[in-house]
C-alpha cells in the first residue's frame, strides 16, 4: 500500500526546511481530521449500538438488574445461577447437538455442490441459481413450508418415507427426538447455497495448471480432488468452517420460528435462552451472563480453529 498523503510537488531548492516540516505537520493533522470525518457518520451509530452494547453485555453480566430496578453489583452470582440452571445446560447441549449436525453436513454438501458446479457445463448458471435460491428466502416462509413438508401425518416427506418402506416415519417437529434433526435438515438445505458460492470463489484460485499436471501424471478425478482441489482450497475451507461454526452456535431465527424451542425444551438453544431471559423476562444480568458464555464459546472455537490452521500450514 502506498502512502495516501497528498504528494506535494517536489521543491527542487531549499532542502528540508522548517517551512517544509511545518507543512507536513499541517498536512498530517488535516489528514487525521478528514479521515475521521469520513468514518464519523458510520462510527457514531456503530459505537452507540454495537461497540457499547458489546462492552455493556460484559459489564451487565456482573450485575443484578431487571428492567425496573437500578443495576446492583452482583459479582459472580449470575454465573453461579447459570451453573445450577438446568435450562442452561439443556440449551448448551442442544446447541452442541445442532452444531454437530449442521457443521459437517453443510461443509460436505456445499463443497460437493461447488466442485460439481465448477465444471464447464451447459446451464451451469441456472443450476447455481437453483442451489442458491433457498438462501435468499425468508426464514418464516422456510419454516412454514418445512413444517408442512415434515408434518408427521401426511406430509410429503413422510409419504415418501412410507413409500420407501419405512413403516414408522419420524414425527419430526412434534417429537422430542426428531425435532432437532428436522431443524438441521432445514438449515443445511437453506445454507448450502451460500457456502457453495464461497467455495466456488475459492475454486477459482486453484491454478488450472495443477490439474493439468495431475492429469498428465495419470491422476483420476478422485485423486485430482484429493491432491489438487482440497489442498488448493485449504484457506477457503478454513474460512468457511469458521463461519459455519460461529453461525451454528448463534442459531436463533430458525428455531424460534420452526419449533420455538420445543417440544418440551428439546430444541431450546443458547441464543433463545438469552432472548427469553433478557427480553421477554427482563432479567438483563442473567441474560448477559448467558450471552457471555455464548460469546466465549464462539471465541474459543475460533481460536482453536486458527491454531489448527496455522499448524497444518507448517
Amino acid at each position, binding site marked *: 500500500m502506498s502512502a495516501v498523503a497528498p504528494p506535494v510537488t517536489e521543491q527542487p531548492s531549499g532542502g528540508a526546511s522548517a517551512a517544509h516540516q511545518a507543512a507536513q505537520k499541517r498536512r498530517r493533522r488535516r489528514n487525521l481530521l478528514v479521515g475521521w470525518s469520513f468514518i464519523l457518520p458510520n462510527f457514531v451509530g456503530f459505537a452507540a449500538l454495537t461497540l457499547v452494547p458489546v462492552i455493556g453485555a460484559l459489564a451487565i453480566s456482573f450485575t443484578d438488574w431487571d428492567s425496573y430496578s437500578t443495576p446492583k453489583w452482583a459479582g459472580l452470582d449470575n454465573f453461579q445461577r447459570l451453573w445450577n440452571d438446568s435450562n442452561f445446560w439443556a440449551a448448551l447441549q442442544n446447541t452442541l447437538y445442532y452444531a454437530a449436525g449442521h457443521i459437517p453436513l453443510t461443509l460436505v454438501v456445499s463443497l460437493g455442490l461447488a466442485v460439481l458446479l465448477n465444471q464447464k457445463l451447459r446451464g451451469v448458471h441456472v443450476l447455481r441459481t437453483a442451489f442458491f435460491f433457498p438462501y435468499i428466502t425468508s426464514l418464516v416462509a422456510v419454516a412454514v413450508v418445512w413444517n408442512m413438508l415434515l408434518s408427521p401425518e*401426511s406430509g410429503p416427506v413422510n409419504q415418501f418415507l412410507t413409500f420407501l418402506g419405512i413403516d414408522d416415519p419420524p414425527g419430526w417437529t412434534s417429537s422430542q427426538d426428531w425435532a432437532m434433526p428436522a431443524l438441521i435438515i432445514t438449515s443445511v438445505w437453506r445454507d448450502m447455497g451460500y457456502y457453495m458460492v464461497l467455495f466456488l470463489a475459492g475454486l477459482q484460485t486453484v491454478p488450472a495448471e495443477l490439474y493439468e499436471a495431475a492429469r498428465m501424471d495419470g491422476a483420476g478425478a478422485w485423486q485430482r480432488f484429493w491432491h489438487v482441489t482440497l489442498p488448493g482450497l485449504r484457506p477457503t475451507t478454513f474460512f468457511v468452517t469458521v463461519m459455519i461454526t460461529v453461525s451454528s452456535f448463534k442459531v436463533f431465527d430458525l428455531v424460534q420460528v420452526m419449533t420455538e424451542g420445543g417440544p418440551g425444551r428439546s430444541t431450546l438453544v443458547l441464543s433463545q435462552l438469552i432472548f427469553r431471559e433478557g427480553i421477554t423476562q427482563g432479567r438483563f444480568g442473567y441474560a448477559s451472563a448467558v450471552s457471555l458464555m455464548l460469546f466465549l464459546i464462539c471465541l474459543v472455537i475460533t481460536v482453536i480453529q486458527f491454531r489448527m490452521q496455522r499448524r497444518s500450514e507448517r
Partner: protein
Amino acid sequence: MSTTVLRKDSTAPTDPAPAGPPAEPRARGGAGAAVGQIALYVLLAVVALAVLLPFIWMLISSVKDDRDVFTVPIQWIPEEFKWENFTTIWTRVPFAAYLGNSFLLSIVITFLQVLTGSFAAYGFAKMRFPGRDLLFTGYIATIAVPWQAYMVPQYVIMQKFGLVNSYTSLILLQAFGAFGVFLMRQFYLTIPDEISEAARLDGLTEYGIWARIVLPLSKPALASLALLTFVNTWNDYMGPFIYLTDNRLWTVQLGLRAFIGQYDAESAMIMTGSVLSLAPVLAVFLLGQRYFVRGIATTGVKG
C-alpha cells in the same frame, strides 16, 4: 511431493496435454466421458429438483383448496386451481400494509447502510491517519461477535430512549452496521491509488474524490451491498419481532407468522401468503443476481 504420489499409480498416461490448458478440469474424449457427462447432468438435475421441491410444493399448494394440501398421495397437479386465494388473502390480513412497511424499512435501511458504509470505507481504504487500523480492527472484531451476545444491551439502550416499538430503533440498529464498511473497503482496495493521486493533483478534495471518482467506479460493489442489505432486511424476522409490538408497524415476516398462528388450518392460504412474501425478494434477486453472488464471494461475511 504429491506428484510422485500421483505418478506411482499412473499406469498409462494416454492423453497428452492439448495446446492451451482448458480453463476448468473436465473429462475429455471417448464414450466413457460422454456417459460420465450424462450421468453428471442427471445427478445435478435430480439434486436441483430435490432442492427446489419445497418451493414447487409451496407454489402448487398456494392455489389449492385447504383440504387438498395434505392429500395422500400428493396431488402434484391440483384438481381445481383456486386462483382466488391470491385475491382473498388481501381481505383476510392487512397484507398490503405489511408489504408497504417492509418496503419502507428495507429501502431506508439499505440507503443509509450504503451511504454511511461507502463513506466510511473511503476513510479506511484511501486515507492514512493514526488510529485507522486499530479502529478498523474494532469493526472487524464485532462482525465476529454473535448478535445475540449483545442484543440485550441494545434493547436496553433503545428502551431508555423510548424507541422500542418504532422504526427508528430498527433503522438505527441496521443502518450503521460494520458489514457495509467492510464490504466497500474490500472493493476500494482494488482501486489503484494512482487514480486518486492524479485527482488530488488536479485539485479535488478527498470528498470530491469519493463522490466523483471512487463512487462511480464502485457501482458493482454498491449494487452488491444494496442487494444484500435489502434482502437481509426484508427477510429479517428477529429484529422486527423484538422491536415492533404494534400490529400497524408489522413487516411481512411478522404478519405471515401471526397469520400462521391464527389460521392454523388454512394451509393453502398460508402458502399463498408465503409466496407473496417471497415474490419481491425473488424479483430483486433475479434482477441483480450477479451482484448478489459477487458481493458474497468477495466478502464471505454474512450481513
